């Protein structure tokens, strides 16, 4: 089960040459600055645009050499930046537009109208005209319409970019739920790292029509040489499981690969899966176990790599556990402290975590 992508050609002012493989499950984000060619890759995958190259899903070739399957024969769902609903049809008929042309013609029904309506909260909108919906509602209908066409691949082109902050926050939980329930692989184009970190499992970093790096998101996040590590909000998102509670203080103990974190709040019963985001600027390093500090979390770890970012800052990668075999985190520290403590790769340290954001319930 996998996706094999390779497109090359000229796009306006630059040459695009993008090749990557993506898993046949979960969300793969195509991430990069505006104009790096990510939308073109998505359009090529849909057959809306044609560049040279090849494209195959689970060994089913959609494009290769002179073979080119037209868009309407590809089992895809496409979510545009603006929902692009049909204004002359009601929400219900919009939702069923693709459904009628697939399930109505004998394609097995994996996704039913009722499921989509529940999942995306569309019940009260069904008989309305798309003209009278808010931006967020429209986009939810757009997602539902794509899902109901029984896609084997969901393509999403910055589905949140045209929305205001409010509508974005409204629709993100729906997308997160989708991620948990859906077995269809998703290619998700975005230039917003926060969105990508909340949703994606796999990352393809693009810049000026080339792939800078591709791989599981945690791996790329913890690579200090990549451009995402230079962003002010750089950090990692790690899978975590609720391992216990300290009810007297209202804290929950989370188990990570290679260590434990105490975080505020009740995060559900033992065994609940969570995603914890730890920003590089929220992690500091100490050579000795800290004493007399108010910081709750100091995890034994080992420095595995470090990269000078500028005059002032160093970006260090630490692996949790005394042997340094656990999950990797980024720590942004000043060069002055780095030199003063005499830190270098291979050394054992204590990673002090000042803040954790919990982003998602993974199923």
């Amino acid at each position, binding site marked *: 089960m996998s996706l094999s992508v390779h497109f090359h050609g000229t796009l306006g002012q630059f040459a695009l040459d993008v090749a990557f493989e993506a898993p046949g499950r979960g969300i793969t984000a195509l991430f990069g600055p505006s104009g790096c060619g990510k939308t073109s890759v998505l359009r090529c995958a849909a057959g809306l645009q044609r560049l040279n190259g090849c494209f195959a899903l689970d060994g089913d070739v959609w494009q290769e050499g002179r073979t080119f399957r037209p868009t309407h024969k590809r089992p895809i769902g*496409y979510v545009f930046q603006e929902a692009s609903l*049909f204004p002359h049809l009601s929400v219900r008929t919009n939702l069923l537009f*693709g459904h009628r042309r697939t399930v109505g013609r004998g394609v097995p029904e994996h996704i039913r109208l009722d499921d989509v309506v529940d999942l995306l909260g569309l019940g009260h909108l069904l008989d309305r005209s798309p003209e009278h919906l808010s931006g967020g509602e429209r986009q939810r209908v757009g997602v539902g319409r794509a899902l109901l066409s029984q896609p084997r691949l969901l393509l999403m082109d910055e589905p949140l970019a045209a929305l205001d902050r409010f509508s974005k926050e409204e629709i993100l939980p729906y997308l997160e739920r989708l991620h948990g329930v859906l077995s269809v692989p998703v290619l998700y184009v975005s230039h917003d790292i926060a969105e990508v970190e909340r949703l994606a499992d796999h990352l393809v970093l693009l810049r000026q029509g080339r792939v800078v790096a591709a791989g599981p998101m945690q791996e790329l996040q913890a690579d200090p040489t990549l451009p995402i590590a230079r962003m002010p909000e750089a950090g990692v998102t790690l899978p975590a499981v609720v391992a216990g509670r300290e009810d007297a203080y209202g804290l929950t103990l989370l188990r990570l690969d290679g260590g434990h974190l105490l975080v505020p709040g009740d995060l559900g019963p033992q065994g609940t899966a969570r995603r914890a985001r730890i920003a590089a600027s929220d992690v500091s390093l100490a050579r000795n176990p800290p004493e007399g500090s108010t910081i709750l979390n100091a995890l034994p770890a080992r420095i595995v790599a470090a990269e000078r970012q500028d005059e002032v800052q160093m970006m260090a990668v630490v692996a949790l556990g005394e042997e340094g075999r656990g999950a990797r985190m980024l720590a942004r520290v000043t060069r002055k402290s780095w030199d003063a403590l005499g830190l270098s790769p291979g050394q054992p340290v204590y990673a002090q975590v000042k803040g954790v954001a919990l982003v998602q319930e993974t199923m």
Partner: protein
Amino acid sequence: MSWQPIILTLELAGLTTVILLIVGTPLAWWLARSGAWWKEAVATVVALPLVLPPTVLGFYLLMLLGPNGPGGWLASLWGARSMAFTFEGLVIGSVLYSMPFVVQPIRNAFEAFGDRPLEAAATLRASPLDTFFTVAVPLARRGFLTGAVLGFAHTMGEFGVVLMIGGNIPGQTKVLSVAIYDYVETLQWDEAHLLAGGMLVFSFTVILTMMMLEKRIGRGGR
């Protein structure tokens, strides 16, 4: 006064409009969507009757439809001498003469909604033909309404072309506008008044209805 010219005119305008919708829709689609470099030349030919004096158009049509033109040859197939001065000839002339009034609004409507709805339909497994009928045509319905009404009304009022290729044969080519001219020539003022007044009321009603319908459709979608 005879009802014949009125019935004949309605027949001519109705038939012309139907033919124009059938021929003009694919033409408008092609003009709206094609990337061919010579499409504007075609668009110009379609638009020519807007500027050309009807007599000029009528003159060339007479050449084409007459016994020495291709129309004459065509007519010889069923034993006639010429297609000029026949109802069929009038229909051909009217189709050409009213074409820009039908093609232009439909083309504009096809261009107005852009590529996106068509792309969205394709990603939802609609074939190009399916997309055309279930997305493009409904989205362009205002253009169709405007085109049909303008084509019909314009054909009803045509005079110059009719006079050149149709003449004045009762029940064959004697349409309203020619009949009015005829009444005036023969000083039958009452009959002329009735027909002219009728045309005035008709035109007013057509335009008013169209504007109101457009408003309604405008509110319904788009």
